[in-house]
């Protein structure tokens, strides 16, 4: 077999493989879309700053302020910690969720329906998969920035209990990934701004009731499994265990849940972008 034939055969096999996987085509250039977003944010840095302060304000008002009234709480397995230490990881996980959801819903909707950004992007070598991966990576990068800043402030405020806490940064990034992917997929179904009520409707209860502000055991028994089924519960659980240095095999369940959610979301978002724009 000549070299030319060989590469041809090689390419055919790759192409068949690519077609067998239910993810639309891409050119491996998703990073250029991330670059575009970074440039665009240089012009609109104010939104970047607000996402940074929000969780920190929560930390001081709820954690440090209210925490003084609440006393110690059970962080699971009978381990008693200060309320601020209990709630800080939950705030970090929620902030990762909120940032990712905001970016992948409102911002993506605007680009999809009004700015027609992806119409021009898809005229270049980039494919629908690049669009999905690019936007989701961007949401997750922003999350990375926020969670690093939050961790720093939390550490200075004295609510971080262990060196394991450094791993909360990749953990928060994973949370961002999971929520951004599902958020983007959901956005492709939105018809108007009104549909965003559904986003708030699913985010707010999750923010309040994912064992964020009080432990799972405080929920009525019948509701505990509902709480445990929500993605934010796993996000909070993951970050909390790491921040408190409570590391065990249970972490893998959280990681698996979020990773699967993210991967399914990316594939779905790419499919939908293809369906909507490559008509």
């Amino acid at each position, binding site marked *: 077999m000549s070299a030319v034939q060989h590469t041809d055969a090689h390419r055919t096999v790759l192409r068949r493989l690519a077609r067998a996987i239910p993810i639309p085509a891409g050119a491996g250039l998703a990073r250029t879309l991330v670059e575009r977003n970074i440039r665009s944010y240089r012009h609109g840095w104010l939104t970047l700053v607000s996402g940074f302060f929000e969780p920190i304000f929560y930390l001081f008002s709820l954690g440090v302020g209210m925490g003084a009234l609440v006393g110690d709480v059970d962080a699971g397995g009978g381990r008693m910690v200060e309320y601020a230490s209990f709630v800080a990881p939950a705030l970090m996980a929620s902030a990762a969720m909120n940032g990712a959801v905001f970016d992948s819903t409102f911002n993506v909707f605007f680009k999809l329906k009004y700015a027609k950004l992806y119409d*021009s992007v898809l005229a270049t070598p980039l494919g629908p998969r690049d669009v999905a991966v690019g936007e989701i990576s961007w949401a997750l990068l922003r999350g990375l920035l926020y969670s690093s800043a939050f961790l720093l402030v939390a550490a200075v405020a004295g609510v971080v209990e262990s060196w394991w806490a450094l791993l909360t940064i990749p953990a928060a990034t994973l949370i961002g990934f999971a929520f951004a992917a599902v958020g983007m997929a959901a956005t492709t179904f939105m018809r108007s701004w009104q549909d965003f009520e559904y986003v708030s409707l699913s985010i707010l209860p999750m923010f309040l009731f994912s064992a964020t502000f009080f432990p799972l055991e405080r929920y009525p028994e019948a509701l505990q499994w509902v709480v445990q089924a929500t993605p934010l519960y796993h996000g909070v659980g993951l970050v909390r265990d790491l921040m408190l240095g409570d590391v065990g095999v249970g972490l893998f369940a959280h990681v698996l849940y979020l990773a699967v959610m993210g991967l399914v979301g990316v594939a779905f978002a790419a499919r939908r972008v293809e369906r909507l724009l490559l008509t």
Partner: protein
Amino acid sequence: MVLRQDGTQADDRPLISAHALTKRFGDFTAVDGIDVEVRRGEAFGFLGPNGAGKSSTMRMIGCVSPPTGGTLRILGLDPATDGPRIRGRLGVVPQKDTLDEELTVRENILVYGRYFGLSRAVVRERADELLEFAQLTERASSIVEPLSGGMKRRLTIARALVNNPEVLLLDEPTTGLDPQARHVLWDRLFRLKRSGVTLVLTTHYMDEAEQLCDRLVVMDGGKIVAEGSPRQLIAEYSTREVLELRFGEDDHGAYEPKVADLASRVEVLPDRLLLYVSDGDAASKTVHDRGLAPLSMLVRRSTLEDVFLHLTGRTLID
């Protein structure tokens, strides 16, 4: 394929070839089995009224819309399997500008170049050249929104050129622009053509088609109804001159029998009669001699508008 002396291959196969190319949206057929071949270096046009299927065709060529039927090869490749590779060698100017309004004029080119996988150094250099080409150097750091329609269009073209495309696809490049802006744009497109870029454009302006296209197809209702150079089409489907008669009454049809023998063909429009003749002055003299006394008489050369009218019985712009 011909091997040139310098070792490069002069490819005389068509850059774009479509056979029985079809696009359906549900039950509706937007493009109905067209055959097209575009050769390297030519300016090729799709002329047709709104809804003819021009944009649907361009989107298929741009590899952002999968054909429903027929075969399509672009640069010898199949869009179904080689979309990204083909798009990497095309420049696309869509019907509606899709500039990035969150970026500056220069950033629009920089970012777009990066989508093609070009290095930062290359896109910086290209951006400067292209801003110069689009006469936008002074506006380089302006945001996009306040630019005039003509400037936005030039920026869209500049952006589409960032990857040095072999083929530039232009969907109605000057629709909505004032006459001066159109001429500036045409001038830029002439330059591109001279530098060897293959142009494929759609338009519903017959003057644009005549100005820019070496060869064109006339499209109507998703089908190609005629093909050739503007001159060939006029010679084949029209006469050398046209005599336009306007009467003071609403019913121009009533005058048709009185002049029918003067022309090889008469078209009755709501506001005038068109007489297709070889000698307009002679015909107008006869009209005068018959005492018909129209409000106005005008002799002009045939245009593609007349070709279209002849082929479809309708005007291009309604």
